[in-house]
């Protein structure tokens, strides 16, 4: 599978490494060259030598998305640090480039919920944290 990941912070870069390790073709787009170093950190081989792709660019720029290979992407992951950026580029991937597997990180549970109902596959780390706190506090809350 060709996986395009936009936004390689802690989450995006870790998912990128996982996908590459599972022998998928992985391309990463990030506006910060530092994210490239994050992909290399702690690895025996550089990101490129391991078969990964990295493009510096802004997610909303079509040229950058095309350079990163969006036209042949089968999985699109939006994991920048901006909820709204993620929600918009995910819809661009879906509606303009016809990618079926689109996964979006949305910190805000409310936005994650509504866009989830609209057919986007949203993941809300905040919602997960809330649920884990709830579970951890179970004895006290009961």
């Amino acid at each position, binding site marked *: 599978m060709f996986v395009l990941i936009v936004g390689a912070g802690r989450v995006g870069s870790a998912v990128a490494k996982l996908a590459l390790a599972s022998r998928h073709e992985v391309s990463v787009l990030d506006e910060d060259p530092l994210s490239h170093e994050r992909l290399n950190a702690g690895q025996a081989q550089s990101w490129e030598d391991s078969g990964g792709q990295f493009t510096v660019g802004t997610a*909303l*720029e*079509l040229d950058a998305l095309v350079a990163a290979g969006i036209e042949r992407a089968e999985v699109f992951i939006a994991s920048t640090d*901006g*909820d*709204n*950026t993620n*929600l*918009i580029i995910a*819809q*661009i991937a879906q*509606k*303009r480039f016809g990618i079926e597997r689109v996964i979006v990180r949305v910190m*805000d549970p*409310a*936005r994650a919920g*509504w866009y989830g109902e*609209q057919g986007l596959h949203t993941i809300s780390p905040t919602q997960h944290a809330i649920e884990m706190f709830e579970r951890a506090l179970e004895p006290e809350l009961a």
Partner: protein
Amino acid sequence: MYVIIVGGGKVGRNLARELISKDHEVTLIESSRPAYLALEEEFEHAVQYGDATELWVLERAGIQRADLVVAVTGDDEDNMLVCQVAKEKYLCDRIIARVNNPRNHDHFRLLGIQPAVSATDLILRLIEHEVPRYGLVHLLALEEERLEIIELEVKAEAPAVGETVSNIALPEGSLIISVLREGSGFVPKADTVIEAGDEVLLVLDPGLEDAITEFFAPNGSEG
């Protein structure tokens, strides 16, 4: 009319002021605390502090009863998101979005966020109006309907001069809707004769401009 304006910068602030002076009910939403405090001195209860891309902030502002939502922040993703949510979640009848980077215009269109207004485009249109190419002025583009309305000044050597409207073989998909002559306008009939110096208004399918220009202001002629 109840209007929610998102973004209290120069555009949002002046828009709020204008609408309030025309007796509309306005809520301005600003996400920066210092900017909000400055706005509060002028707008008092008509300005609220918060990030309008958070649903509860929009709900607190009463989005359910808003007649119009205008998103004019400096961030295109925020403007798109606010308008999309206003339209699709809260079923607000009318939205207007500001486009900061004209290259994002396609994204607004893709998500059905119309009208999307870009200052760059407006200024370009004004320049076109002031410095018309071949004397052609774009008056209006009806993007949804895929139609345009243009204005042309008829040159002395143009093929259309001296011809009746019915004799001018305009391309299919175009129609003369009005003629301005000596300061007054009228709707032409089939036997109206086009004269040099007339200003003609046409409605047309996009892409026919060059063909139309050939009839009224052929290449190279100066007005």
